[in-house]
Structures are given as structure tokens and as C-alpha cells.
């Protein structure tokens, strides 16, 4: 009873999650008004410094941030929607394989995608620049592409975000009642006319929602602007906050003011997203296994397939290939030089960066622990949200979704400010990372477990109640076995995200607790391309192997039928 229908656990959970999220943010806001770390008086002087004294650089900072966010979102929408339409609505050949290739960059952190792109589009050493100079017969030694630019950042981040748009849009397209499109055809609309006047209009909420998600993610993105912007001194809010926190001399109050600005911007976007989606149902779901009618591309079938494949190979496969290639070369070269092949980048990794393997072990352990804690906490939150009627459930739902609107960098700044001081000094321990990981991924876990729970007929649990089962046995014998596939999927999603996490890890990792992100950054700062590449290949292999093992074990035993005793 205490678990499922009394008010107490819901209230306690709301307080716990609220504390996890809001306590660090409180110290960010506090620091932004504080005279200095040693002086407990409050002032607006830091806001003055940021917005008046340094108004010119601040305006530039906001300009770069907004251009990066809008530009990458636009690119992500164009690419993601086009790919979704090709796969879900046309007879383009090889759609299944295309989907896999198109989604593969999703498994890399955008920071490492950015590193890969430097191999392809650096002014001097980029493979694509070499090719273009040769094709266009240019005499220059650099260019024409420059990945270290605002455009380069938009390109890399937009491509990284396009799978989000793709996934939302193709899910909506798949659940669209095909008779809505057939009705347009019967009313005389052409295939193209139906696409633009009916299909796209019907999935517009999904596109809008994924676009706003992409916008929120791009605002909080640290990895891409750190790799591609910082070397040419183009800063956005996240990298500016990080450099004020991490680079000597630290300016924590300055970072706090910028954090507050980023937080406000993120809250506005999340609010806009909820508003844009409120009262709007997604698409009509039939629940029947209709195959949606494919648009026959006719004589364009092969040219379109060739274009789509070239694009996804050039933007998705090539960066990965370049990364793997770089990891086995003694130096980066755009030509195929078998004499440079070496395993030194792997064997010498530990001597170059003694903490490399410790970091992988730390990240693995912290990700497994973080995903497990986050999904467990989320399960209880979801139980309360779905079982509880009335305002308490709504409050809990709202609080659990709060981390969505908190950029990871800002949250990390808050954790540093909250847990560098007594009573709880957590900096330099793994606990501060666990706190960040669990809190930031509660929304993902709650979404996964709520959707799993909402697909369970309430009568299945009620039947257990009528059979005499108390709350713990209902949870253990009925609910958890029934929603296990959903919980496992949620766990894997959080685990993969945590293995890739850089935005908060870069600030919260420390010499005593190195993680993937901190080692990656230090290798990158050394300019050791080969080591960066080999380290990232190792991280990805470890991540994939563990995820595959977990999925295999969980799926094999899922819905195993109990035998007769």
C-alpha cells in the first residue's frame, strides 16, 4: 500500500527529485548575485560586468549561441524529415540498410564526431579539402572547407541531431492511418500533392516537437563548440561557462551569470515546446498492421537512392572510417599509406595518458550504476504518476521532467558550487558524477517506464490485488516482469547516453576520478590525433559490447514462461 496508492511516497519522491534538481541550481543563482566566493554579500555587479561593461563580447557570445542553435536545428529538420520520408514513404531501394547507416552516428558523442570531421574538413589536412582541391584544380594549400567555423559547427551538430528528427518523424509516419492519405488520392491529389498537403501536415506536431528538442539540445551542447569553436576563439554560452569555471583564473561568478542566462533561455524553449504541443494530439493511430502505401519513385528511384546513400556515407560513414583509420596510423594522412600502419596508438595509450584505462573503467562503472539508479528511481516516480490521481501526480510529473530544461553544463556548475562546500564535499569523488548522471537522466527513465506502465492494462495489477498480493509482491511478481522490456530499453538508452556524456563530465571529472570526457579532452589538447582516435574506438567498443550483452541476456529471458511445478 505504501508503494502504490498512499500519498506519502509521491510526496517524498517529489521532494527528493525536486531537491536533486533544484538544490544545485539554487547555488548557481546565489553565486551570480554574490560579490565573491569569500564575501557573503549580494550585489548586481556581475550582471553589470556581463551585460554592460562587457556588452560587446556578450552580444557576440549570444549571437554565436543562437546562430549555432537555429542553424543546426534547421539542418537537422531538413535532413531528418527527408530521410524519414524516403524510408517510410517511398520505394527507395535498401531502406533498411539505409536506416542503420543513417542512425549510426547516434552512438558516438558529438564531441568525437567533431574530432572526426576535423580529419575530413580541416583547411589543411582534411580529406575532403584534398579531394575538392584536386577536383576543382585549386592551387591553394588550404580550403575551400573550414570545419573550424560557425558553419562547421552547424554542419556537425545539425547532422548529429538529425536522427532525433528522423526517429520522431518516422514514428509518426508509421502510425499514420493510411486511409487519410488514400482519401487525398481519391479526392484527386497527386502523390506529391498528398505528401505536402496531407502527410507532412499530419506529422507536423512530431516534426515541431523534435525540432524544439533539437533546439534545446543544441543550446546545451558543449562538445562540438569546444572542439571546433574554441581553437579559433569562437565561444558559445556553454564553452564560455566552462572556460570561466575550468581555466585559470576561474571566474565562478561570471560563469554563474552566464549559466543563469542559459538556464532562462532553456526554460523558455521548454515552455514553448510544451505550449506548442499542448492540446495537440499526435497522429491517428489505427493499431492495425497496415502497410502504408509507398510512393513509387519511378525513374528517379535509382538516382535518389544514389544521392541518399552518397550523402549518408559522406556524412555518417566517412567520419567513422576516418576515425578508425587515424587510430591505426602513426600520423594522419589523406592518402592510403600502408607503411604508416601501426598499433602504437593503442599500445602506447597508457604511457601517453596514464589515466586512459582507469577512465574507461570509471565511465563504465559510473554509467552502469547511474543507469541502474536512474531507471529504478524513475520506476517509482512513474508508478506514482500513473497510479496517483490529482495534483500531486502532476507536480511529481513536472518535477521529474525539470532536468530536460537544465543544460548539463549549467547543472554541473551548480553541482560544483553546491558540493564544493560543507556539509557535503563531493568534488573529487565519484558521487558528484553519479548525482549529475542520475538527475539529468531521470526524464529519460521516467518516459521509458511511464510508457511501459501505461501499456499495461490496470486490471492485470488489480487481478493480483484481488488474488491477495500486497504491493511488493505485485511489483515483483506482476508489474516488473510485464514491463521488463521497456525498463531494459530505458536502461540501455541511459547507459549509452552516459558513456557518451561530456557536457557535465568535463567539469565534474577530476584527476582523482578521470572519466572518458576528461581523458578525451586532455588527449585532444595535446594534439594527439592518433591517441584520441584509438581512445574513442576503445570507448565505443566497450560501450557497444556491454550494451549488446545486456540486451541479449534480457531479451533471452524476457517473458520466459513459468513451468509447471
Amino acid at each position: 500500500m505504501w508503494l502504490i496508492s498512499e500519498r506519502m511516497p509521491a510526496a517524498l519522491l517529489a521532494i527528493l527529485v525536486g531537491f536533486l534538481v533544484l538544490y544545485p541550481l539554487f547555488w548557481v543563482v546565489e553565486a551570480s548575485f554574490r560579490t565573491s566566493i569569500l564575501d557573503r554579500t549580494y550585489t548586481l555587479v556581475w550582471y553589470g560586468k556581463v551585460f554592460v561593461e562587457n556588452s560587446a563580447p556578450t552580444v557576440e557570445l549570444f549571437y554565436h549561441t543562437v546562430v549555432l542553435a537555429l542553424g543546426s536545428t534547421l539542418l537537422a529538420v531538413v535532413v531528418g524529415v527527408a530521410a524519414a520520408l524516403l524510408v517510410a514513404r517511398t520505394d527507395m531501394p535498401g531502406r533498411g540498410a539505409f536506416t542503420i547507416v543513417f542512425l549510426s552516428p547516434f552512438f558516438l558523442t558529438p564531441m568525437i564526431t567533431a574530432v572526426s570531421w576535423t580529419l575530413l574538413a580541416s583547411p589543411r589536412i582534411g580529406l575532403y579539402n584534398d579531394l575538392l582541391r584536386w577536383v576543382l584544380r585549386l592551387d591553394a594549400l588550404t580550403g575551400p572547407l573550414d570545419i573550424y567555423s560557425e558553419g562547421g559547427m552547424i554542419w556537425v551538430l545539425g547532422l548529429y541531431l538529425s536522427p532525433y528528427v528522423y526517429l520522431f518523424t518516422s514514428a509518426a509516419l508509421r502510425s499514420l492511418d493510411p486511409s487519410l492519405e488514400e482519401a487525398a488520392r481519391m479526392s484527386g491529389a497527386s502523390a506529391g500533392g498528398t505528401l505536402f498537403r496531407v502527410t507532412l501536415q499530419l506529422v507536423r506536431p512530431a516534426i515541431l516537437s523534435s525540432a524544439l528538442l533539437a533546439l534545446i539540445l543544441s543550446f546545451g551542447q558543449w562538445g562540438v563548440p569546444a572542439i571546433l569553436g574554441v581553437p579559433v576563439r569562437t565561444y558559445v554560452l556553454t564553452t564560455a561557462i566552462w572556460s570561466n569555471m575550468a581555466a585559470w583564473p576561474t571566474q565562478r561568478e561570471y560563469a554563474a551569470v552566464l549559466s543563469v542566462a542559459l538556464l532562462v533561455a532553456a526554460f523558455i524553449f521548454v515552455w514553448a515546446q510544451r505550449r506548442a504541443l499542448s492540446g495537440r494530439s499526435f497522429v491517428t493511430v489505427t493499431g492495425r498492421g497496415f502497410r502504408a502505401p509507398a510512393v513509387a519513385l519511378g525513374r528517379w528511384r535509382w538516382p535518389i537512392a544514389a544521392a541518399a546513400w552518397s550523402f549518408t556515407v559522406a556524412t555518417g560513414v566517412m567520419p567513422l572510417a576516418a576515425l578508425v583509420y587515424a587510430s591505426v596510423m602513426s600520423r594522419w594522412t589523406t592518402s592510403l599509406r600502408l607503411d604508416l600502419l601501426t598499433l602504437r596508438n593503442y599500445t602506447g595509450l597508457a604511457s601517453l595518458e596514464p589515466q586512459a584505462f582507469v577512465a574507461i573503467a570509471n565511465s563504465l562503472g559510473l554509467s552502469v550504476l547511474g543507469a541502474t539508479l536512474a531507471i529504478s528511481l524513475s520506476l517509482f516516480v512513474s508508478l506514482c504518476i500513473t497510479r496517483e490521481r490529482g495534483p500531486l501526480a502532476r507536480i511529481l510529473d513536472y518535477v521529474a521532467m525539470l532536468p530536460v530544461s537544465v543544460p548539463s553544463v549549467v547543472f554541473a556548475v551548480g553541482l560544483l558550487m553546491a558540493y564544493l562546500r560543507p556539509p557535503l564535499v563531493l568534488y573529487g569523488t565519484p558521487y558528484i558524477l553519479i548525482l549529475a548522471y542520475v538527475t539529468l537522466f531521470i526524464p529519460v527513465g521516467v518516459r521509458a517506464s511511464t510508457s511501459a506502465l501505461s501499456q499495461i492494462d490496470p486490471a492485470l495489477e488489480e487481478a493480483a490485488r484481488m488474488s491477495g498480493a500486497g504491493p511488493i509482491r505485485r511489483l515483483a511478481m506482476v508489474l516488473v516482469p510485464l514491463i521488463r522490456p521497456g525498463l531494459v530499453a530505458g536502461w540501455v538508452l541511459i547507459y549509452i547516453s552516459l558513456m557518451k556524456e561530456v557536457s557535465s563530465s568535463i567539469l565534474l571529472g577530476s584527476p582523482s576520478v578521470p572519466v572518458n570526457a576528461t581523458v578525451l579532452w586532455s588527449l585532444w589538447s595535446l594534439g594527439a590525433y592518433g591517441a584520441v582516435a584509438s581512445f574513442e574506438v576503445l570507448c565505443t567498443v566497450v560501450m557497444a559490447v556491454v550494451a549488446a550483452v545486456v540486451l541479449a541476456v534480457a531479451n533471452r529471458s524476457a517473458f520466459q514462461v513459468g513451468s509447471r511445478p
Partner: protein
Amino acid sequence: MSIEVRGLTIRYAGTAQPAVRDLDLEIGKGELTTLLGPSGSGKSTTLRCIAGLERPDQGTIRIDGQIVCDAARGIWIKPEQRRLGMVFQSYAVWPHLSVFDNIAFPLRILGVERSRMRRKVEEVADLVGLAEFLGRPATKLSGGQQQRVALARAIVFEPRAILFDEPLSNLDAKLRERMRREIRSLQRRTGLTAIYVTHDQVEAFAISDRIAVMNDGRIQQIGTPQEIYARPNSAYVADFLGAANILTGRYTTEAGRTKLAIPSVGLAIDLDLDVDAKSTDSATGLVALRPEDVQVLPSAAGTAVETSVREVEYLGRNLSLTLESAGTELRAFVSPEPVPSIGQRLWITASPNAVVHLGPATPREDRQGS
């Protein structure tokens, strides 16, 4: 009394009307009582309050004399401690367990020793005709078989009563009739007290010892199926049980004989029998005339009233006619031959025995009867 409900009231947040209001219900040992009503009448809510799956705002519930719920005194026994079996509309058979494990679940909770549990499960499975399916995954069963699993699970732990929440409405018509008979015979053999919720009056008539017709969160009438059909106490009940023509009648007494006039249609009927004094002590009252009791004549005769045919529906065994007289429409069932044409003139009359007297008209019933 096996189950006793007093003053049950439950209100859902955000709704103006309570779902159930001030409801009293008594159910005798071994009796099968049906709560019959349209959706939203509060029948499922009442059942779920008895089960303990909903917590009422007011009222007391006793099972075998034990108070399981007394809102005023804050007494509340959790559903898992009430020892009631329940069969759900969606069957609620657990897909991750085998048929055996589904049925054995309540016994496992009770900690019944293995060999006894196995004996008991086999005995119950035999009773519901599932003996050879015990090792199967529950998801590999048809709808009817799943419903049998649910039934077996509900009776295996010898509950104090068994609750049925629209158990047959997901089955097709033929299977529904068969399961209905099986449920009834199982209930008779086990002697279990049962409450059965349905919106289907045919099902209610077939299965029940007593029927409680529900309307707007209240019991409108309770009685045996025969009582309810023969003497509905309101236009609502008469209408719900058989799409009756509800009309306003005027009673007059002339030389010791009571006459009933129905001005809206123009019918006048000699009531040569004794009508319940209660029904006729006021001058006007509502009467119900079932479609099958309207006599349709091809030509004028006696006091028969002239009507014209508005609609003809072919129902197989008979024809349903919509007849109009003086602006009032009436439904009548007639033999399928010959088929009258639209606009044709027909004459109607009704035998005095066929008229159901519903008592004085209240504005409320007028609205619902129309």
C-alpha cells in the same frame, strides 16, 4: 446477508455528479445478483467499491458480517485482504505466466504447500475445462479460454464471493451465450455468492437470481428477473429492458369500470381487470406499451386507432414498424409477412393485460421515457 452495502457514495475529482450516490444493496448467501445499467450508471464503480479497488467517500460495506469499509469511521480493508475473487472484462490474464501459474497465483500468495496447490489448481482447471492447457503460456489461448483462466483464478482460493465486471463483453455472441451458461452452472455448483455487472439485459435475465437496474448512480429497481420485466417501477426501467413505448395515460372510472385514455395517440382501453390501486389513484400516469404488445390491424375495428407507417425495419423473426398517429410515433413488432409500404394506413389497439402501469408521471421520467 453475505454482502451488505449501506449509503455508498463516491465522487470522482472533477465531476459534478457523484458516480454512485447513497446506494443500498443486500446480497444473500449463494445468490447471483446482477447490476444492470448503461455505461456511466455506476454499476462498475459499485462493484469496484465492494472489491476495494475504489475507495468510497461515504457508506459502509460488510462482507459476511465483517466491516470492510466504513468511510465515517475510517475503516478500510485493502482489496488484497478481502478474499474476493474477481473476473475482469479484459480477462487480466498475466502474459508472462503459464496457465498453471496464473491459476496458482492466489495460492502462492497464501503460501499453500506445493502438492496441495497443484491438486487444487488441477481440480479447478478441470471444473472450467482447462485441464489439458495447464502447461501452456497464457498468451497462446483464445479469448474464451483466457476467460476460463480468469474464472479459475478467481475461485481457486475459495473466496468469500466472486465479482464479475462485464466478463463476457469481449467475446463473440455465440461464445458469450455458452460462457454465460457455464458461469451460471459453476456458480450454482460452488454455491458462491456472486455479483455480476453487465449492460446487456438479455444476459442479466438469463443469469441472475436478482437484478438491480441502475441509473445515475442509484438502484432504480431491484427484484427477480420476472418481477422486473413484468412490473417495471419506472419509465426508465421499462425502456431499458425493452425499448418500450412510454406514453402518458389518463384514468377515468365510469360505472365501476376503469378506462385508460392515451390522448397523444388517441387510444382508449377498457381496464376490466383490477389495476394496482397505487398506480391509478391519481388521474394521470405513465404507461408502457411494449412493441410486441401493440396489436396492428389491417382495417378499422372497434376502438382501434388509425396510424400511418413511417419506417419498416426487417429484423428476421419479425418486422419493426414505426407508426405515427396525431404526431406521436410508436413502435410495433409484427409478423414479417406481409410487408406494409411506407405511408400505408394501419390500425392499432392494445389488450388491457399488455399495458404496464408505471404510476404518476414525474418530469424526470417524462424526459427519459421519450
